[in-house]
Every structure is written in C-alpha cells, then in structure tokens.
C-alpha cells in the first residue's frame, strides 16, 4: 500500500499542475525537470529514514534523531561562515561538486571524532555522547547565529534561502556524487540488519549474544553520519523528517526486524516528503520551504503521539 502511495504522490508531483497536455513533448519536458526533484526526494527519504532508524537502534532510544547531534548546526555554520567571510558570493563558493564533498567530509569527520572520542574514552557512554553532541550542536548554532547578526540584510536574505531545508536547494550536479555514497552506506547498513536487530536489545543482551557492542555501535553511527551528512549537504536541515519517518514506519511495519523496517522507512519518508512538497506547491501555491510543513506536521504528530501513547 505504501508503494502505491509513494508512486501516486510521485506521479502527482510530476504531472499535477503541468500546463502542457499529458503526453505532449512539453509535458515530458516539464516532468523531466521535476523528476530531478523526485530523485532528490528519494535520496533524502532514504538517508533520513534509514539513518534515523539505525541511529535510534544504536542509541537504544526511540525518540531521538541524528540531526540533534550537531550535523545541522555544522551545516548552518559552514553556510553562514561562507557568507560572512565572502559576502553574498559565499553562497556560490560553497556550491559545486568539490565543495559538496568537502562539506560531507567535514560533517563525517566531525561525527567520527565525536563518536570515536566519546565512545572509546573513559566515559564510553552513549548518553553522555548524546548530551555532548547536543551541547556542541547548540554551541555551533550559537556561533552561526552570532555571525548572522553581523550580516547585512541582503546577505542574510541570501543565506536564509540556503538554511531552510528545501529539495530545490539540491543541485542535480551533486547527484552522481551523492547516490553512490548513499548506496554504499545504505548497503552496509542493510547487510548489517540482523546485527542491528540484536543491537536494539541493548548493550548487555547484545554482548551476551556475542556482538562486539562498541565496534558495532561505532560502525552504525559512522554510516548514519554519512547518510545524514549527504542529506544535510544536499537539501539543508530537515529536523523532524527523520523522526517522523522512523516513528511512522515502526507503527506501520510493526516489527523489530530491520530488513522490513528499512524499506518501510524509505517509502514512508518518500510519501511524507513528496506529499508535503505536493501540498506546498499546489495547495499553498508557494514555492517555499517544504521543511516548514514537515516540521509543523512532524512536531504536531510528535506531541499527539507522546500524549496518546505515553510511551514509545
């Protein structure tokens, strides 16, 4: 059923409001232009869905999302820093294949250092790592906000467009770089699915069953950071998407088995993202930010879910 929904909302995005008659040359031309967006959505849904599910498994907690670990703040800081130092031209300076890869690399290195330091040090505790991640994220965000204060209004305007998560931020030129990266990280997690099932039981049960808990956690977190970094560098921050998708897909899949949860999460992510996009474009006639709709819906859903269930 999800697959049908996904196909429908995908087709809706391609065809709805297309001024040309169906089947004509113009129709396909416009559809082709929109299809880039669709590919980006597929990619982002994959990244966010699978990364969040895996992250929650590794953290043994169903209410957190990897975006709180400082990825988004780092992205914000990089973008702001570029505009701050180079002016409005800075936005252009952080675009391009090489820069895209550098941003991804920066975020992954940041995550690797954080995880490596915190999980192997004497704290060796995921809770502490999360806490420090959140604080670091807050710190980076504050630095970015401070720089934004010093920008001129026009520069700030240019920057804001980049900081709202939006599928149309993505440059089709990044896709050849992003797709293999994501496929690689996703593939590794897929092969790891059975171990993830065990990891989800918590440290003690996992060790008892013969899993090298620390190594496995590090591996998962690194793969997650690749996925999140690609997604963030591609479209900007989408705080609630991953959380919303993970929660929905656990409800829909109703199983602990990651080999089912992963595809469900991907499809759910795509439905949510393309649905939100469709609503935004064709109901509100605003070529605005899809992140806003997702965050309103996601935030609302989160509250309702917590209040209704009392547990996760």
């Amino acid at each position, binding site marked *: 059923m999800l697959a049908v929904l996904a196909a429908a909302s995908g087709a809706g995005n391609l065809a709805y409001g297309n001024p040309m008659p169906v089947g004509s040359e113009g129709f396909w031309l416009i559809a082709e232009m929109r299809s880039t967006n669709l590919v980006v959505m597929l990619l982002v849904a994959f990244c966010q869905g699978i990364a969040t599910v895996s992250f*929650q498994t590794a953290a*043994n*907690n*169903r209410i957190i999302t990897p975006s709180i670990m400082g990825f988004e703040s780092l992205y914000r800081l990089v973008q702001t820093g570029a505009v701050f130092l180079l002016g409005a031209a800075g936005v252009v300076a952080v675009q391009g294949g090489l820069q895209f890869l550098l941003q991804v690399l920066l975020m992954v290195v940041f995550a690797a250092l954080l995880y490596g330091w915190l999980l192997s040090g004497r704290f060796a505790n995921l809770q502490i790592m999360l806490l420090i991640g959140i604080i670091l994220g807050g710190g980076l965000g504050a630095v970015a906000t401070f720089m934004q204060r010093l920008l001129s209004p026009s520069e700030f305007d240019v920057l804001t467009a980049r900081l709202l998560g939006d599928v149309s931020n993505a440059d089709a030129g990044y896709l050849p770089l992003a797709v293999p990266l994501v496929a690689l990280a996703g593939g590794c997690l897929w092969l790891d699915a*059975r*171990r993830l*099932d*065990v990891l*989800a*039981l*918590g*440290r*003690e*049960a996992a*060790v*008892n*069953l*013969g*899993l*090298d808990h620390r190594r496995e956690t590090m591996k998962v977190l690194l793969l997650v950071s690749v996925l999140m970094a690609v997604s963030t560098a591609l479209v900007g921050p989408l705080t609630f998407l991953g959380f919303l998708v993970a929660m929905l897909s656990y409800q829909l899949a*109703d199983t*602990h088995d990651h080999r089912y949860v992963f595809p469900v999460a991907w499809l759910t992510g795509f439905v949510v993202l393309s649905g939100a996009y469709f609503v935004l474009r064709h109901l509100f006639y605003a070529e605005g930010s899809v992140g806003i709709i997702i965050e309103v819906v996601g935030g609302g859903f989160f509250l309702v879910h917590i209040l209704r269930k009392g547990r996760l």
Partner: protein
Amino acid sequence: MITATGVVKKYSEEVAIGPLDLTIPVGGITALVGPNGAGKSTLLTMIGRLLGMDEGTIEIAGYDVARTGSKDLAKIISILRQENHFVTRLTVRQLVGFGRFPHSRGRLTPADEEHISRAIDFLDLGELEGRYLDQLSGGQRQRAYVAMVLAQDTEYVLLDEPLNNLDMRHSVQMMQHLARAATELGRTIVIVLHDINFAGHYADRICAMKDGRVVAVGTPGEMMTDDVLTRVFDTEVEVVDGPRGRLAVYY
C-alpha cells in the same frame, strides 16, 4: 569449570571488589549469596564479560574471558541481568529466537526453530509464545528471558537475581525449572540469590561473598549453619531443621 584468579574491580579509590579467587566446578547450581554491595552481581557480570576487570583473570572452560572473542564466548556462556528492558516490541518466540543468534547469526534454521520450541516448552511458555512481552506478567516475562538464555544452548548459564520481583509461587517454579535445566540439560548454572533459604534448598554449592571477597564456599550442608550465616550477613541467624531441610531464621 569457571576459575577466577586475583580478580579486582576498582570503582574508586575506596570502593573496590576483590581480589577474588573462586572456582566453580562443572554441573549443578552454584548460588552466590551475601549482603547488598558484597559484589555478587559485579562478579557475575565480570564472568559474563559485561564488565571489564582491572586485574586478574577469569577462565571459563579454559577460555580467558578477556581474550576470547565475544562471538565464541556466546556459545559457551550466557548471562541474564536483573533488569531487562527492551525498546523493541517482541513476542516471546521472537525473544527466545534471539538466543540462537550466536549459532545462526540471525538466520534461523529448522534446527534453531527446534531449539527455540524446546526452550519454550521447557519453561511452560507454549501458550504464550505469540504474546508480546509487554502483555505478560512479571513472572511470565522472567521465564521468557530465561528461555532465551536456555535457547542459547551454552554450557554455562549465569543469572543475576532471577527471583527478583517474583512472588512465592513463581519463585518456586523458577527454581524448579532451573534445577531441571541443571540435571536434565546438564547446564552449569551460577545464580545470584537473595533468599538464603532458596539457596539452601535448590543449590548444589553456595558461595558467600562479603565486602568484595569470597568468605565461604561449600555445600548447603556446610553453609547452612548459625556461625557461617551470622558471619556472612552480619545478622543474628538461627538455622533450624525444617520438614524439607534446614531453614535459616533471621526475623
């Protein structure tokens, strides 16, 4: 055989467990008893490699716990902690199925399914196998956890206070199941117990700990005496002959 030699775990400058020396022979039930904070659970988790030790070595069936891969140890020894809370929503059968992970890496074979069914039947969970863990009572859930470690099919089974939060009936049932597992399945069971009378009745050996050290080891007959128990628990204990063996009275 489980051998601990000079095992030390330091929590801080003042608080440390050990040095501990202990040998647990193959077969039967060995109960670890002692007052709170004596280090029973710490010792158990160190044997089960959930906690690293600062000094000393522990060998299980000749394998050094610190050096042997976790994967290989999982086929020799299984450990169940006192608190078990899973984020994942699992049915009893799915949970018990995880016990087969060390053998099948998650791909359950027909032989695995058979092991799972046997463990479920062994603990009388047949009717509950399709139920979710959060739909079970505390006693049933505890049995499901024990079924999982039995399905792991390890020679050594470590249990940390499995009677915790169980009422009289479920405690007795649990101990009877464990006694059967030791005799019928030939498992070596090491168990942390709080109730000395349970230990006296069901265990084959009792190991008493106090202040991070092993202070006495022996058969229930040797251990269930006024002297030993009073010394171990720092409480006036009187041992009387009951209808089914000796009982410690300390109320």
